[in-house]
């Protein structure tokens, strides 16, 4: 079978149908956008990630930064 015919397609929330490749490409773009955030914003996000790791991830040795 032609590889392209086997290609998985996903229907997004906005109704748009995309291939897996397009989905990953979109995620790559989103990451590049996040990379442009101000340093201070990124540190705030980091603290949120530390909170998640501490509570949901049950990593009780994580020190949640005081910023």
């Amino acid at each position, binding site marked *: 079978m032609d590889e392209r015919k086997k290609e998985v397609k996903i229907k997004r929330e906005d109704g748009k149908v995309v291939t897996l490749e397009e989905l990953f490409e979109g995620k790559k773009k989103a990451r590049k956008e996040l990379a442009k955030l101000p*340093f201070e914003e990124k*540190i705030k996000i*980091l603290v949120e990630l530390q909170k998640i790791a501490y509570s949901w991830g049950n990593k009780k040795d994580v*020190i949640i930064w005081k910023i």
Partner: protein
Amino acid sequence: MKNVLEVMNNLKEKGLIKDYAIGGAIATLKWTEPFFTRDLEIFVIPKKEVAENEILVLTDIYDYLKFRGYDKWVGQWIIIEGIPVEFIPAQGLEEDAVKNAVEVEYEGVKTKVITPEYLIATFLKTSREKDKIKIQMLLEQAEVDIGKLEEILTKYGLIKEFRDFYERWMKEKKK
């Protein structure tokens, strides 16, 4: 975080260190998307020149921090203003990285952050799995000056390591 940077600037102003720059994961995060990390790594150029086989001590820094009331340790980290900090003495590649770090402001406080090119070189040197992931993130998301990177890798004999790493990464990507 702002308070830690003020403490670092004090150390520099008092001549207890020559210079410093944020390195490791937090420096990476400056140039990439945010991700989870536990500590703040700070590369420090000590005030005293150190000979090759001499043991490097950061006693002056720790004495000053103790005097300021920062004497709580958790593993390898000293807790400054609620943030686990690790000091890494900068020599050779790391010293160059500090000297060439860029000045940035964090909530109005001036500080220095190691550039993507030097970060890639330092991560390549340590080459743990988590370091390799950071190299990939930097190459994909940060604006890396390839000419400068090549220059650094050549100077510190890391070109082969970089090529091997890059080849393996590209092979994995194709799978």
